[in-house]
């Protein structure tokens, strides 16, 4: 089962893509590890590593980068929120 990954706001613009679906790479078990593996693709993906105070959500719940991720999850990365 794939992992669906979403990007929002300035991060979405920097990456030039709002979402993608991929097979969870072997050995990737946390949101932070997934972030690192995506950032390792090089430009523009390093934005995932350089975005200040990057936030993440798994299955639409805000989580820390140490949260577990498994096949079938919806994972989102985004900058700190600025609504209201």
């Amino acid at each position, binding site marked *: 089962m794939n992992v669906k990954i979403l990007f929002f*706001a*300035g991060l979405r613009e920097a990456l030039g893509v709002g979402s993608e679906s991929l097979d969870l790479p072997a050995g990737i078990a946390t949101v932070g590890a997934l972030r690192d593996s995506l950032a390792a693709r090089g430009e523009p993906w390093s934005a995932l590593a350089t975005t200040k105070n990057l936030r993440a959500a798994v299955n*639409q719940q*805000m989580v820390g980068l140490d949260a577990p991720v498994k096949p079938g999850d919806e994972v989102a990365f*985004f*900058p700190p*929120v*600025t*609504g209201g």
Partner: protein
Amino acid sequence: MSISVQEVDFDAGAEIAALSTGRDDVGAVASFVGLVRADKATEAKVSAGTQSAGAGETAFVAAMTLEHYPGMTEKALEAIVAEARGRWDIFGVRVIHRVGRLLPGDRIVLVAVASSHRHDAFAACEFIMDYLKTRAPFWKKEETPGGGRWVDARESDDHAAGRWNPD
């Protein structure tokens, strides 16, 4: 439905009135309406990044676009309202947040809370706004004469939300 994420404007007076319609136990309705400000010069000056206005410049916001995370946004707002209900004795709650392109003076957000007494209504309303600012997945992008610019999160908003959980 107590929570709405929508592009269209809202009638704050009608929403507030609806919270006490048909009931005689509501003694207080507290509400907050957030608007798009034209002049964000102070924030622009202190923000980092190439698209920010330089020191001493004034960046007038011509328009603003609100992006959100459909699905998560509604869940996050519902969780915030549920948390408020657990902390205070409140009746109806109405939260409306607009998305899409907005102009200076446009309404962005409404939070209205009905209760028996003012204290719970005031506190719950402020709590919901503070948590919305730091936990609901919305992002603002401003259009200025110098180009588009994503609004930076403010530490003061984190502090405002944090004071509801004193250690």
